[in-house]
């Protein structure tokens, strides 16, 4: 890199850091997400608000169960295809890869990994969650289609575990998003994780895994708790 390029890069960096300082005083919304007017290709001026243009601001709604046998059939089908989002949040995510190997083989239970939240209905919170990660977790969880299930792995999600006095990790996951199954241990072995899946299947078949509805019902409470710790809230309230 020539000296001229280097100087240019430094000046751009400095400029960016100045913008960030001025923005920090106003709000945490990034400059590219701010509400503003832009000129369209045909010359007309239009207003854009990226945060709300790209996401629906609609609140989540409760889905009432269908009547009788239909719901039972649906629950049986749901229990047999649990598609897990491949998102490791903490140290526990290292326990998930063995499940895909022939030794533990989670595919025989109808459990498989998916790369995007739009295709998955189960989310494994694997271990400690820092506030920074929680923000991403909420955003991802809300993008998953209902009915959706959460498995919380390890003691960190239950009561903070060994990070109970940390300034940056949360203590109780169920205050921020509803949890279907807790799998205790530090760390739980893959067998424990499989047992957790079996428990989740039982709950789904019994019609008790209705946490997505609970999230919709107590939406304001969950949002208040989330916003209490995520100080730089620069995303829409509901990210669907």
């Amino acid at each position, binding site marked *: 890199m020539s000296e001229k390029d280097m100087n240019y890069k430094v000046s751009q960096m400095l400029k960016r850091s100045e913008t960030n300082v001025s923005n*920090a005083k106003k709000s945490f919304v990034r400059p590219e997400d701010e509400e503003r007017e832009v000129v369209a290709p045909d010359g007309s001026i239009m207003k854009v608000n990226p945060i709300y243009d790209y996401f629906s601001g609609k609140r989540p709604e409760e889905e009432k169960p269908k009547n009788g046998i239909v719901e039972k059939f649906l629950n049986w089908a749901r229990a047999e295809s649990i598609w897990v989002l491949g998102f490791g949040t903490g140290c526990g995510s290292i326990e998930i890869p063995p499940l895909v190997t022939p030794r533990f083989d989670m595919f025989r239970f109808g459990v498989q990994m998916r790369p995007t939240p739009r295709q998955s209905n189960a989310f494994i919170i694997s271990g400690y969650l820092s506030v920074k990660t929680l923000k991403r977790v909420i955003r991802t969880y809300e993008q998953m289609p209902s009915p959706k299930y959460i498995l919380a792995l390890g003691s960190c999600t239950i009561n903070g575990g060994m990070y109970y006095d940390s*300034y940056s990790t949360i*203590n109780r996951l169920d205050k921020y998003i509803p949890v279907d199954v807790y799998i205790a241990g530090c760390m739980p072995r893959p067998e424990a994780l499989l047992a957790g899946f079996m428990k989740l299947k039982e709950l789904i078949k019994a019609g008790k895994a209705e946490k997505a509805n609970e999230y919709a019902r107590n939406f304001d409470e969950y949002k208040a708790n989330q916003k209490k*710790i995520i100080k730089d*809230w620069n995303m829409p309230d509901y990210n669907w």
Partner: protein
Amino acid sequence: MNEILDKIKQKYSAEDVKVQRTGLAFVTVNKDVALDAVTWLRDYEGYSHFVMMSCVDWIEDGKFQLLYLLHNPVTKTDVGVKTLINRDNPAMTSGHHLWKQVWTYQRELKEAFGIDFPGSPRVDENFVVEGWVDIPHMRRDFNTKEYSEETYFPRPGRETHDPATYMREQLYPNQPVTAKRKDNDK
């Protein structure tokens, strides 16, 4: 190594020169000449590799101690240049022009200890935590347990036991505690 230390003593009136072991020495210099000493070590004495930069909070003295650790790849020796800065409104001359890695270290120190490095690129951006509004979290007067209890809904029922005492109470509840055992428990 000793020649270099003598030179630093003469040129930058370094105090507290300490040879930790063969090939590792620390010197403490005044805040105003600390970066001069670092630059001199880099350009004239071959300490061209910047290992790291860190900070120690001496809360009792009201000081932050900055450390620049440099390595000479030819002689395989390290020199740490220490300097003390005031704990109230801490600020230090930025060394971002010396090595590019210094940008990141200074950004980290700004977030963790609140030390300002005016002019350092991107120094005000988030480094690890996002949206932090409390006092910098690595300062010793920040009580992390208290903060966690106030902020993160501690689950009631959490207890801590000393493993030795607890197991003895569980396994041998009637056995008297001897003097030797008492010592061991300490």
